């Protein structure tokens, strides 16, 4: 078990090293990617600054709390994009061309190789940008260090990444049946719109049911809500526990789903 984990960690480090070498061969591209992400962060800040010029709270979230949430979402999304998004995006193409063959032949977990093959270094700074935004928000809020909240945040953050990853894996697997599926990048952007806002906006007739649906049935809302909540709002141990359970379960389900999908893989020969 320990040897296995060490082996995969070594492999991940190797893959990260080689992708970095490649990325550095196209440095201009890398810089552009980073600047797009910076620009996007700027747009988000401009948007919410404009909005908070007209109001003092959104769904019960004050301005610093809300910016902490935005930073938290940005950081989680950064992790997802750095490690998985590009790989999952390429999966449809691997299926279409049959190049998936080579990944299946390796004596190593298929899901690991499919989803962690390349690292997108251009989005790695997003984690940092999100952290900076969270830091600024905490300072503005006058947050004092609380070990219980901080550790709950770390746990919930990791679970958020795991849940988001699982949902993305399922969206990815679908492309085995729908060869030439439109870019997963776009699908993920649409789907993750659920993660971008606080759960509290789902209030009022009908919306509350939808909010509960996406918290308890398709629990995507937990991804950025729970870590932000435990840090700057209420620390609800039951919610953290639920998030941990959901993270484990969704990892398991997405893995099963991926394997079922692989059984339908036809290996196109060109």
């Amino acid at each position, binding site marked *: 078990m320990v040897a296995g984990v060490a*082996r995969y960690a*070594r*492999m991940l480090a*190797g*893959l990260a090293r*080689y992708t970095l*070498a*490649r990325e550095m*061969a196209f440095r201009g591209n890398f810089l552009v990617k980073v600047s797009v992400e910076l620009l996007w962060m700027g747009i988000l800040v401009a948007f919410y600054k404009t909005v908070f010029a007209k109001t003092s709270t959104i769904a019960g979230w004050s301005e610093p709390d809300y910016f902490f949430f935005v930073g938290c979402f940005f950081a989680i999304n950064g992790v997802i994009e750095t490690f998985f998004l590009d790989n999952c995006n390429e999966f449809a193409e691997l299926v279409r061309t*049959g*190049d998936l*063959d*080579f990944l*299946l*032949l*390796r*004596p*190593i977990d*298929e899901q690991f190789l499919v989803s962690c093959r390349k690292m997108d270094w251009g989005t790695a700074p997003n984690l940092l940008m999100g952290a900076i935004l969270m830091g600024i928000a905490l300072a503005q809020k006058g947050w004092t260090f609380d070990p219980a909240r901080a550790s709950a945040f770390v746990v919930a953050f990791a679970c958020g990444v795991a849940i988001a990853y699982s949902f993305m894996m399922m969206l990815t697997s679908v492309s085995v049946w729908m060869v030439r599926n439109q870019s997963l990048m776009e699908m993920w952007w649409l789907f993750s719109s659920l993660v971008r806002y606080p759960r509290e906006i789902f209030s009022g007739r009908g919306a509350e049911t939808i909010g509960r649906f996406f918290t308890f049935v398709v629990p995507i809302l937990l991804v950025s809500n729970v870590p932000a909540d435990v840090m700057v709002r209420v620390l609800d141990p039951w919610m953290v526990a639920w998030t941990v359970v959901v993270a484990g379960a969704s990892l398991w389900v997405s893995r099963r789903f991926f394997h079922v999908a692989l*059984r339908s*893989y*036809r*290996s196109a*020969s*060109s």
Partner: protein
Amino acid sequence: MPIIEVEGLSKTYRVFRKKEGLLGSLRGLYRREYNEVKAVSGISFSIEPGEMVAFLGPNGAGKTTTLKMLSGLIQPTAGKATVLGHVPWLREDAYRRRFALVMGQKNQLWWDLPAADSFQLHREIYSIPKDRFDRTLGELTELLGVEKLTRQAVRELSLGERMKMELIAALLHGPRVLLLDEPTIGLDVVAQVAIQKCLRDYHESRGVTMLLTSHYMRDVEALCDRVIVITRGTLVHDGPLAGIVERFGESKLVRLQFVGEPPDHAELSRYGEVSKLEGPSAAIRVERHRVAEALADVLNRHALADVSVEAPPLEEVIAKVFEEARPAHDAA
């Protein structure tokens, strides 16, 4: 104890039947019809350790599909197979560590990186001990004469050099079974020979079992001593190569265009098997060493407007002959 055992292996695909025209495609949105395509139907054979076997058959006969089932990439619809005692499509790590698949039309190396980096990654993935890795890599690069190219980005290599790198990548972990799908496709003769030599040497030193498909009879002749012929998803011949090469590999297709009345069938049959005789033109399959003699003889006797000598596409000829022979065989 056979190393590869295949029994009644079948693969059927369900193919969406695309309708013609705009209306058809609109209807296709709501109701779809499917065709069943039998890529492989009920193939059985077994291979002993150390054998080198060629898979022959025309395009679309099911060779690649069979290889892909044996490598565990796709699941068969029916039938059984074991390779090295494993069921391939379970894709156990223990199995994947012990075999390799080389596909001539695809590349598995990282395009923008030097091959050496991809090899290092292979070392991690296959958990190859460092000393064994260095030794094998040294041997293989020397054997293929590419010691100096491993530090160059793969995209800058020629097709032949790239194929050699692919082969090295496939052999690094010392597979016991090697499946090769068109390993020399598109390569020039020099590179073809180098790859054949490498495979032969590797076979001699390691006793690896090989199963290969190729369009080039030269590959088959150089490497294999047993041939399995597949047409339309069924196995039609399984036996030693020797007889087949004598029968077909050594013949040429001589096309003759006579001036005026051509000679009759019986006369032409003296040179070889007459495959066509229509009006003033004829095609005869003549054994290679008799071509010159036959041509001289024909020229002595008749006036010719045109002559050509062609090498028939051998594996297709073989497949065709077996396919033609099959109904008779089945009836018997």
